[in-house]
């Protein structure tokens, strides 16, 4: 069976390699991909949308409908992770606490627990990892800068590489850094589960809402030129602002979904202790 599988892999791999011979060479201006619609985008996108980064213009304006459903796919991935993994009923559990003044570890079995408001005791993970002072401090200092960079990536996607997807992932990563460096409870305290769920839906809603708003203003769905009626800018600039609005929606959705997936995977859906 293994031999057969190897044979099939080698055959199909050889076929694929053979097929690559017919590919147009890299950067060939006469290839079908760069003769069909690409020249039009390259020539007209700046004067039509006022966005210097052609990739952003194509992604969020000319092909805005595709990107909307890409965002929906990410939202669905988050919902699927939540549905599959999240557990609400408490199980038979072992709780571990550390007595802060003495450093003593307490192990409690069953239903009893120390109230989370206690100043003397601090809940720790079952697989205890020592909290490194350097890692904690550095990540605490780093998080605002990561978030600032993420916001820059979202807002500056018109002029430089970047946009909603990348910025959203970086924004989500800043919360995941907290969860890895401290513990999952710290991260969930900062960015709660309910807000997370609401924001992942809100992002998709912003995107679809901007599209529907354009339709209400009398143009086609996701035709941002219609936004010129309510914004104090021209029709070309309105497309640029429309792109920014949907990028913000994408960023919010992606951020919330990344945090949702991490929390569910790392804690097996129990949201108590993770990596």
């Amino acid at each position, binding site marked *: 069976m293994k031999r057969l599988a190897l044979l099939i892999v080698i055959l199909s791999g050889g076929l694929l390699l053979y097929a690559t011979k017919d590919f147009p060479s*890299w950067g060939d201006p006469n290839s079908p991909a760069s003769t069909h619609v690409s020249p039009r985008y390259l020539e007209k996108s700046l004067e039509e949308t006022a966005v210097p*980064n052609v*990739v952003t213009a194509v992604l969020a304006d000319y092909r805005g409908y595709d990107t909307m459903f890409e965002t929906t796919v990410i939202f669905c991935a988050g919902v699927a992770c939540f549905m599959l993994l999240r557990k609400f009923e408490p199980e038979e559990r072992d709780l571990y606490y550390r007595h802060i003044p003495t450093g003593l570890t307490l192990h409690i079995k069953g239903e009893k627990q120390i109230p989370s408001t206690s100043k003397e005791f601090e809940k720790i993970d079952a697989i205890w990892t020592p909290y490194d002072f350097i890692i904690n401090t550095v990540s605490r200092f780093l998080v605002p800068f990561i978030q600032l960079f993420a916001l820059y990536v979202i807002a500056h996607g018109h002029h430089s590489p970047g946009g909603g997807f990348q910025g959203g*992932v970086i924004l*989500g990563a800043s919360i995941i850094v907290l969860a890895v460096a401290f513990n999952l409870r710290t991260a969930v305290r900062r960015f709660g589960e309910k807000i997370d769920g609401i924001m992942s839906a809100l992002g998709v809603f912003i995107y679809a809402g901007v599209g529907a708003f354009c339709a209400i203003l009398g143009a086609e769905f996701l035709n941002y030129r219609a936004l010129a009626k309510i914004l104090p800018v021209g029709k070309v600039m309105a497309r640029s602002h429309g792109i920014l609005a949907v990028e913000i929606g994408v960023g919010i959705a992606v951020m919330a979904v990344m945090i949702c997936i*991490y929390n569910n995977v790392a804690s097996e859906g129990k949201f108590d202790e*993770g990596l």
Partner: protein
Amino acid sequence: MIWQLDLAILTLVIVCAIAAISVKDLLGTAILFGAYSFMMCLLWSIMAAVDVAFTEASVGAGVSTVFFVAAVFRTTRRTKD
């Protein structure tokens, strides 16, 4: 495009890919997959597809590695087969 650099990175991509599916240690596989993604990111940026490279770096090399490590943390570390 510098072909020596291209060749070196392509070789590393293939080495990472083969290592990622043949190593028995799952944490190692996760790290190797991250390295694979990073090499792909370099390839995209060599081909001047900077937006794709950025996405690959943030999603492939960044967050998905963390997801894999988190999943490995919740399983046994070595595969049974």
